C-alpha cells in the first residue's frame, strides 16, 4: 500500500511585510513622489522589512486535524492567510491537493441592509458554495441558527447573538476538502458555543482536513491530535497536541515581558502609556507566585505623552486563564475610583485584592487605560501585559490546602436542616 500524497505541503514558506507601508496603511501619490525624490537611488523595501514567516515547512495528510498555536503576532494568521490565498507568499511554496474554504471571521460577506435569507445566499456564495448547494442546505442553516422568525428582517436589526448564530451557521455548512478556521468559535451565548464546538467536532471527525488557529487551548487539545507551535514567524514545535500545548504554556509564562514600554502590539490613543506592571505582596516585594487566600496587589506604572493634557483616567485589569477565559475584570470605574483631574506625567496605580479568590493555575492579564477625552477614549490597551501563578493555599483557614480541581474559591457557609 502506498501512502497517499499529503493534501497540503508547505515548503520553505516566507512572508515579508514592509513595515513603513504597513504603518501608513495606504499611501498617497505625494508620499511616493516625495520618497522617490528624497531617496532617488533607493529601491522600495529595504531595512524596514519584517518577516512575518520565515522558512516554514510542514505537511498535512488527508483527514488530519491540525491546530496552530502561538502568541499574538507570531505569524499564525499570516500563515492562514497565505493558505487561504488571501495574500501571496514572499518565498517558498504551498501545494494544495484539495479545494479550500476559509473561515477567518464570522459573517464574511454579510451586508447589514439585507435580510437573513438574502445574507445566507450572499455569504454562502462568498465562502464558496454554489446556489444549488445553498438551496439544499438552506433549511438546515436556518434551523441551526434558530432564526426562523427573523428570516425576512434586515440583519442590522438582529441582536448580536442572532447575527453570530446566523454567521456561524452558514460557515458551518461549508463542505470543502480543506477547511481553515481562525479564532471564530467564541461566539454567541454558552449554549450556542457548545453547539458550535459540537458542530466543529463532527466536522473534524468527518474525515475532512481541518486547520484550526485558536487561543482556546483546551478546545484544540480535544479536537486535534497534532499541533504546530509558531513563534516569531517560525515553527518551533510540531507534535502531539498535549505536549505542544504544555510547551506553549511554558513559553508564555517565561516570555512575559514586565517592561511594557517596548511592547508594540498595543492599541489606543497612546497619550497615556503603561510602562510596567507586576504583582506585589503586602511588604511591597514583587512576586510572581501567590497563594490562594492571601492578599496581593496588581500594580502598573504609566506615563503621559509629553504635552498631552489627559484628564480623568480609568484603569482596568482583566484577568484570564491561559485558555483565554476571563475570570475577573477589575476596573476603577466600577467602584468610582477613577483618577479625577489632570493626569500627572508619571504615575502608579495599584489594585489591592484583600484575599485571592483564584484557586490555582496560570493567569494572564490585560491592562487598559481610558480617559475622559470624548466620553470614553481608549488610551492604552496591552493584552497579556503580565502573568502570575496562583498556588492552592489554606483558603478556608482549616489547616488544609483547598482542593485544586476548581478555578476559584470563595467564602461560603453550609447549613443542613430537616
Amino acid at each position: 500500500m502506498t501512502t497517499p500524497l499529503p493534501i497540503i505541503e508547505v515548503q520553505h514558506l516566507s512572508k515579508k511585510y514592509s513595515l513603513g507601508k504597513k504603518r501608513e496603511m495606504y499611501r498617497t501619490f505625494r508620499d511616493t513622489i516625495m520618497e522617490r525624490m528624497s531617496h532617488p537611488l533607493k529601491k522600495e523595501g529595504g531595512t524596514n522589512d519584517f518577516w512575518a514567516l520565515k522558512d516554514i515547512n510542514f505537511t498535512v495528510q488527508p483527514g488530519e486535524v491540525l491546530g496552530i498555536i502561538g502568541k499574538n503576532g507570531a505569524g499564525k494568521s499570516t500563515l492562514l492567510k497565505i493558505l487561504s490565498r488571501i495574500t501571496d507568499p514572499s518565498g517558498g511554496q504551498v501545494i494544495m491537493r484539495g479545494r479550500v474554504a476559509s473561515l477567518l471571521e464570522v459573517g464574511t460577506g454579510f451586508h447589514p441592509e439585507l435580510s437573513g435569507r438574502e445574507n445566507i445566499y450572499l455569504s454562502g456564495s462568498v465562502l464558496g458554495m454554489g446556489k444549488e448547494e445553498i438551496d439544499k442546505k438552506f433549511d438546515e442553516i436556518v434551523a441551526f441558527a434558530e432564526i426562523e422568525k427573523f428570516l425576512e428582517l434586515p440583519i442590522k436589526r438582529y441582536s448580536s447573538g442572532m447575527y453570530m448564530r446566523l454567521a456561524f451557521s452558514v460557515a458551518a455548512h461549508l463542505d470543502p476538502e480543506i477547511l481553515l478556521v481562525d479564532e471564530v468559535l467564541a461566539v454567541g451565548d454558552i449554549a450556542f458555543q457548545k453547539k458550535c464546538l459540537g458542530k466543529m467536532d463532527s466536522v473534524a471527525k468527518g474525515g475532512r482536513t481541518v486547520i484550526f488557529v485558536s487561543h482556546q487551548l483546551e478546545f484544540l487539545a480535544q479536537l486535534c491530535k497534532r499541533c504546530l507551535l509558531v513563534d516569531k514567524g517560525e515553527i518551533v514545535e510540531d507534535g502531539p497536541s498535549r505536549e505542544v500545548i504544555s510547551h506553549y504554556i511554558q513559553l508564555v509564562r517565561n516570555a512575559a515581558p514586565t517592561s511594557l514600554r517596548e511592547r508594540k502590539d498595543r492599541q489606543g490613543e497612546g497619550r497615556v502609556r503603561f510602562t510596567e506592571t507586576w504583582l506585589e505582596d503586602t511588604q511591597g516585594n514583587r512576586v510572581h507566585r501567590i497563594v490562594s487566600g492571601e492578599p496581593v496587589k496588581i500594580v502598573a506604572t504609566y506615563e503621559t505623552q509629553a504635552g498631552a493634557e489627559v484628564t480623568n483616567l480609568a484603569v482596568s485589569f482583566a484577568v484570564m486563564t491561559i485558555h483565554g477565559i476571563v475570570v475577573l475584570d477589575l476596573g476603577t470605574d466600577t467602584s468610582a475610583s477613577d483618577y479625577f483631574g489632570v493626569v500627572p506625567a508619571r504615575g502608579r496605580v495599584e489594585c489591592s485584592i484583600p484575599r485571592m479568590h483564584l484557586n490555582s493555575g496560570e493567569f494572564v492579564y490585560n491592562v487598559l487605560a481610558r480617559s475622559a477625552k470624548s466620553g470614553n477614549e481608549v488610551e492604552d490597551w496591552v493584552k497579556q501585559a503580565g502573568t502570575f501563578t496562583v498556588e492552592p493555599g489554606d483558603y478556608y483557614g482549616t489547616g488544609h490546602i483547598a482542593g485544586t480541581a476548581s478555578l476559584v474559591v470563595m467564602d461560603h457557609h453550609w447549613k443542613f436542616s430537616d
Partner: protein
Amino acid sequence: MPYELILRPRKGLSALNLKELFAYRELLYFLAWRNVKVRYKQTAIGAAWAIVQPFMNMIVFSIFFGALAKVPSDGLPYPIFVYAGLLPWTFFSNVIRMAGNSVVEDEKLITKVYFPRLIIPSSVAGVELLDFGVAFIIYVLMMLYYHIPLTAQILAVPFLLLLMVIAALGVGLILSALTVVYRDFRYVLPFMIQLWMYVSPVIYPVSIIPEKWRFLVALNPMAGIIDAFRSALLGKPFDIPTLSVSAIVAVVIFVSGIAYFQKLERTFADII
C-alpha cells in the same frame, strides 16, 4: 485528474484564469444582485432613480445648451439627441465611479476570503446595465413622442453595448486598483468624470469637430461609442473611422485594465 494548486510568489504579468472566473460566475451574480438590492433599499422611489439622473440632465441640458446656447444637434430635436448620448454616458460614468471605489469598499471581503478579485469591480457593471435598461424605457417613450422611425441600424446596439461595457470596465478596473494603493483617486474621480463628459460628445455632436481632428477625439473611447449609439438609435449614418479608433482604444484599455488589476491585486490584502 486530482486537483492540485500551487501557491508561490507571483512576478510580472499573469494570464487571465478564465476557468477559475467561470467557476466563480455565481459569485459574480450574487455580488451584482447584492449591489442592486442594497442600492435601492430604504429608498422611496426605488429603481425609478435610474431614470431621474439622465432625465434631469436631459431637461437641464436641453434648456441651456439646446434652447439657449443653440448647440447643433445634427438636425434632430435636442432633447432626444442629448438623451441618446446621456444613456451610454450615464452608464460609463456610473461604472467608473462605482467600480473605482468598489474594491476599497469591499475591504472586508478582500482581507478575509479568496475569490478572483476581478469579480468585485465587474459586479458593478451588472447594476448599471439594469439601470441602463430602465433609463432606456424613457428613450422609447421619447422616440414615440418625436416620431423617430426605427431603422435597421438598431441592430448595432448589442455590439455597442458590449463596447460600452468593455470601455467602462477597463477604466473601472484601473481606477479600482489605483484607489487601493493611492486613496487620492477617490477625490480625483468626480472631477475626472466631469471633465471627461465635456470632452465626450454628450451635449454636442461629433460633426462639429473638424474632420482632421476627429481621430484625436476618437482616442476617447466614449466619443466613438456615444456617436455610434446616436446613429444606431436615431438612424443617422455611422461614422465608421471614429467608431473603429474608439473600439480599438476600448479593447486596449480593457486588456491593459485586466493586466494592471491582476498585477496589483496580489498586494490588495496587504495594503488595503
